């Protein structure tokens, strides 16, 4: 067993875990943050995507101990004071979801995209940047629309994930 200490959604957490514990397991099972999903187990579908020190990482192939000391943001950490993050609001508003299973990963990926590429995202950029996130329901049409709108809204509100969640 190994001790791991992290800041998750702004809260310090520490636990004694099997060193083989995946970050996604730690989040879901130890912390009961079940909004981060396991889709493909092999870091391809993106349902498990979280932010580690402000950068998008797939939690299903990351060992919890390997990110000891890091600040983690999960989908549960995006909303502030009971108010949805502009990107969450955009996905809801633009019907960017059906079964919802890929949604948390999509939103975390979208926020990361805005952090890296700014608030004015053209469609081509969004489509190509989203290749690490699979959705089987929507055909991506409304997801792309939601990301463009969410990026713009983040710009207007002056929000980044770092400001929002850390």
């Amino acid at each position, binding site marked *: 067993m190994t001790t791991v200490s992290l800041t998750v959604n702004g809260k310090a957490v520490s636990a004694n875990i099997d060193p083989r514990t995946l970050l996604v397991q730690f989040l879901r099972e130890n912390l009961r943050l*079940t909004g981060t999903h396991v889709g493909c187990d092999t870091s391809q579908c993106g349902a498990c995507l979280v932010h580690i020190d402000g950068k998008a990482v797939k939690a299903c192939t990351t060992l919890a101990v390997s990110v000891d000391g890091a600040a983690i943001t999960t989908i549960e950490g*995006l909303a502030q004071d009971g108010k949805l993050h502009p990107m969450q609001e955009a996905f809801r508003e633009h019907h960017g979801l059906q079964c919802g299973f890929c949604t948390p990963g999509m939103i975390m990926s979208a926020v990361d995209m805005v952090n890296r590429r700014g608030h004015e995202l053209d469609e081509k950029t969004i489509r190509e940047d989203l290749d690490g996130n699979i959705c089987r329901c929507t055909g991506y049409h409304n997801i792309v629309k939601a990301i463009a709108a969410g990026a713009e809204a983040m710009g207007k509100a002056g929000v980044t994930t770092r400001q929002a969640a850390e």
Partner: protein
Amino acid sequence: MADARRKLDIAAEAGPVGGALAHDSAAKHVAGEAVYIDDIAAPDGLLHAYLGLSTVAHGRLLSLDLAAVRAAPGVVGVLTAADVPGVNDISSTHRQDEPLFATDRILFHGQPLFAVVAGTREQARHAATLAKAEYAEEAPLIDIAAARAAGGALVTDPLKLERGDIAAALAASPRRLKGSMAIGGQEHFYLESQVALAVPGEDEDMQVFVSTQHPSEVQHMVGAVLGAGSHAVTVEVRRMGGGFGGKETQANLFACVAALAARKLKRPVKLRPDRDDDMAITGKRHDFVCDYEVGFDEDGSIHAVDALYAARCGWNADLSGPVTDRALFHMDNCYFYPAVRARSEPLFTNTCSNTAFRGFGGPQGMVGAERFIEEVAFATGLDPLEVRKRNLYGGNSSTEGLGRDLTPYYQQVEDNIAGHVISELERRCDYQARRAAIREANAKSPVIKRGIALTPVKFGISFTATWFNQAGALVHVYKDGTVALNHGGTEMGQGLYIKVAQVVAQAFGLGLDAVKITATTTGKVPNTSATAASSGSDLNGMAALDACETIKRRLTEFAAKHWQERPEDIAFLPGRVRVGAREIAFRELIQAAYMARIQLSATGFYTTPKIHWDRKAGRGHPFYYFAYGAAAAEVAIDTLTGEYKVERVDILHDCGQSLNPAIDRGQIEGGFVQGMGWLTTEELVWDRKGRLWTRAPSTYKIPVASDRPRIFNVHLLENAPNREPTIHRSKAVGEPPLMLAISVLHALSDAVASVGDYRVCPRLDAPATPERVLDAVERVRAEAAS
């Protein structure tokens, strides 16, 4: 029920029905708060099960040594067929051809042999790999050709549809041609894998939370495996992370194993396979080979079609009977064949047992139909769209040709709008001008060639198993005027729950916030059908409305008596109830009714009218109505590599009078892209040993965001209420849009044909991977030169 239907004919007053409302769980989805089965808070003492799988595809199991499995860290139990107190079978057809655990015969690679239960999921997964199995291995039958070569054993009875004298009609046709087409299968890749959680109760009780489209079947299966009555088993599912048909029967295995372990160990047990195991174990869309002969004339009119649809069904029947039947039901698509014979060949193979997948065989049948059209177009030199139009079903009038409305299964096409949809889309997307421009541009472009195609869809709505076309609902109105809604349909992302809630809210004149959507459970509505065949809203919407109408009838009678008004002067209006000259709040009426001891809860029930089907005779009226649509796709291919892009897609789709246009658009866009994946990039590969090689998204390429057409114009057909009195005159929308993607296959074919100056039919098989496109380019070039 009759009352419910009559009410629909009254012009709908303003209310939630028809509104572009967000999915009922949208706010929870974006917040990460929606609870899937794996997210349910672990019950005290939870254990985890994992499956041990066969490592050969065919043979006998000589011995199974599980000593090392039992001795592995954390293991608390191991289950084999010997531990099954009831029947060791989960065949949904009751053919007894699907053992829960293999005992002797091994029929596919990945067949469950045993389950191990441990304290953690990792311990169970690890222990499952420690089994020592000895096999007497036999050569597996992997594909259709091998199955046929070995004698062509079938998993279920084939179907034959026949109208007219096919031999005579072919002989009398001015021209005829023969061909064959391979149509690939498809992995569902629901984002949430299969998963079940079983919690034992007192007596024989078992509560199962499982990601399933068919809770009643899981209930029945769990009962049979445990040797308990269905009354002891309760199955619940609030939502699935995608289903697409892959959780119609395929969830049974996981639910039954979890329940068996829970019974034996008297503790809650969860079972969630890893994605690669899920992909190896569970069935997929059937791949087909369609052999055809078509008789036609120089004008492009089809005289006769003779087609044989062979399917790789896998190691047991599962739903292969109805799936291959539905392939034949759609081998006409929108076209009238004066003489026709269609036969199915549901072949046994040593592969996973192929199953339901959005369209349920219909897409494969329809891909065949569009190939017949394409062959005729190339043989006559006509635009395929012209050939499509010439062969559309007509009415019964003399101008359209007597009897040109009869399907190969003798159902009259009474609601044909295919011609209207096609011509409307042709105009809107400027098909003719773009086609001419593409041909001109291709002549000047040596490497990149573009192609365009417009294909229609006509999809039959109803379960072909007539008895499945029934649904139940349970509606409670509480004293505070809020409503709890339950019905037999399951939510897999398609928006069924919000649509039915819209119907209920509208019936009472309430806002959606007054209606609580509750999880589907066999404890509330019994004997339900699978949420499948696009039927969810049609069936459950009507059943829920029936329950509402019962309650409203009681309330109306009460109000008339209580306030001394005539029943016809009581009306449920948005946000209020009119009682004669006064208007009161719904809540006020409910409180008064409760004090007067009026029952405020009701069940509802619905059965689809008009339908019947005699499979033996191949005749009947299996579909209540048809849903229509059309799509025009434009692609560009690189003739040096076979790579391509879908440049533009225009869709016009018929949802009747949509219950929720936002939800319906989502179904159309998502269905189209899923269909496009099936016909382009998604290729399943088994090796000669019967091992599935495409077991992850790394090797099995489902569409990603950049694959979606660059221009994607989607429109719902306007002013097109269902001519049948369905729920608010809407039409089913789950499956039909998937087949709009056939336009992409034909646009690719059109682009390929350009290298042979449009003289040679490319005969592009599906999926049209870049490799296949390149092959076709070279073949067409060679044939055109010779």
